[in-house]
């Protein structure tokens, strides 16, 4: 009896916590609904919240949400995976070899601030308008932060660890794979966490610019035909996707590296 009461109390306090957290969002939705219902703005500019949710439901049933979203996610994650693979290798090499550092450092500091999205027309020219050009543009954008994150991680490995490994006769290859790489994993993971939203942004944006399916392309399509509720649906889909993925990566980080308590919560 007591137990049930305490569970109920905890449930209520959790609900209260969720409410205090989400009341600003609910407030924004309520203000939006009132403005739209009162007809203060033309429905073409701002549909009501209920219209947007009805449209979401319709699109969901028509299969216009899940399949395009999976397509966009595939492009984002394929590009991200590619950039992690290449970026980690280059970052580790730069930390361990003076030649690699000499060769890549100027290229990275020149390429890092460049707005890679401007390469869309070139990537279309080289790789077509299908998924390949989008995946490669995502990879091209994400590889720079991944290189920098890995390099920082590999440079931050404590000298004493390296000296101990050297004293035990560790070869350079083992040094990379058994010492440097594992100890820079937290940095690499932090890099992935920073880069994941970028991958999503680039995937969505290239779809908006170049078409070729995916949520971004459908969003532009809806705007061209002035289907404002659909425009809002796709914006909300993008927002939710980004939010959920960010939370998932946090969870994954806490699960993979439980010793990094303070980083996981920040």
């Amino acid at each position, binding site marked *: 009896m007591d137990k049930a009461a305490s569970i109920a109390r905890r449930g209520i306090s959790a609900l209260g916590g969720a409410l205090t957290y989400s009341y600003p969002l609910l407030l924004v939705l309520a203000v939006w609904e009132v403005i739209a219902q009162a007809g203060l703005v033309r429905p073409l500019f701002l549909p009501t919240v209920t219209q947007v949710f009805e449209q979401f439901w319709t699109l969901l049933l028509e299969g216009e949400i899940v399949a395009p979203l999976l397509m966009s996610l595939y492009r984002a994650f394929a590009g991200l995976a590619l950039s992690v693979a290449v970026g980690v290798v280059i970052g580790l090499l730069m930390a361990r070899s003076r030649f690699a550092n000499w060769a890549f450092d*100027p290229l990275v500091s020149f390429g890092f601030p460049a707005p890679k999205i401007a390469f869309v027309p070139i990537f279309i020219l080289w790789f077509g308008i299908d998924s390949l050009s989008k995946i490669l543009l995502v990879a091209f954008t994400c590889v720079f932060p991944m290189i920098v994150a890995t390099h920082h991680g590999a440079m931050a490995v404590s000298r004493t660890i390296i000296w101990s490994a050297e004293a035990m006769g560790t070869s350079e290859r083992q040094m990379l794979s058994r010492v440097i790489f594992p100890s820079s994993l937290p940095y690499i993971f932090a890099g992935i966490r920073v880069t994941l939203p970028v991958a999503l942004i680039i995937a969505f944006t290239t779809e*908006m610019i170049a078409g070729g399916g995916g949520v971004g392309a459908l969003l532009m399509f809806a705007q061209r035909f002035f289907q404002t509720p659909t425009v809002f649906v796709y914006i909300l889909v993008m927002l939710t996707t980004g939010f959920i993925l960010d939370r998932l990566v946090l969870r994954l980080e806490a699960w993979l590296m439980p010793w990094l308590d303070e980083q996981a919560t920040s």
Partner: protein
Amino acid sequence: MSVTERIGRLAMGAEYPWLRSVSQMMPIVAVVLVWQLAVDLGLVDRNFLPSFTDTIRALWDITRNGELTINLLVSTYRAVGGLLIGSLLGVMIGMAMATSKRADQFLGPLVATTYSLPKSSLVPLFILWFGIGDVMNMLTVVLACLLPVIVSTYHGVRAVPPVMLWSAQAMNTGPSSMRWRILLPAAMPSILTGVRIALGFCFVLTISAEMIAAKVGIGKLIFFYGESGAYAHMFGGLLAVVVVAYVLDRLLIAFMHYLLRWHDSISASSAHG
């Protein structure tokens, strides 16, 4: 000292500083050489990759007839203007969130949920609301620059050591001068890190918005060259954007060093950007 070691030390600029900058240029020169040779030797189809000299010629061409200059100026105005407005707003909002519990409770969830939204997704909506032009473009840039600056200001202010606050309070510092004369300078390293992230966003957003819909702007120009098959001109425009973004990034770093000249991290690591 062996010969190779000596060459290595020379190349790293250990003895002559000017050699160091020459050495830093070498990899970029090498990439340009490979590019030029690959096209000239016919390893790559000229229609897919115009040679470096062709690109420079096209770049000179569009600079002289004013096409590049005007479009690049418009885009830079949008990007930098949006960055300035977004950073100022971001510092104010971040400061409010860090110093007032009520502001934090209200704005915190909004910031957390909109942080991961790709801001370019708002472009179609802003086209509907404001039409194609500066307002729609800059508003997207402002929103994109706002969030990283809010977050970095918030964390920077929160990380100010309490000892500093206590001393300021002991010296009778009012709430407003506490914010702008104690917390703001103390949080400046963190704020500027956020501004540098925002600088990266501002050009990306300007160019994406221009490629989606615009009448003028460098993104529009590059896309237009690409669609009409003027690939050397497209590469020329792209090269100009990359250089402008690089120069702005360097300028911001120089500005950061100037603002933070009192801070330990600068004198310790002045070499690394």
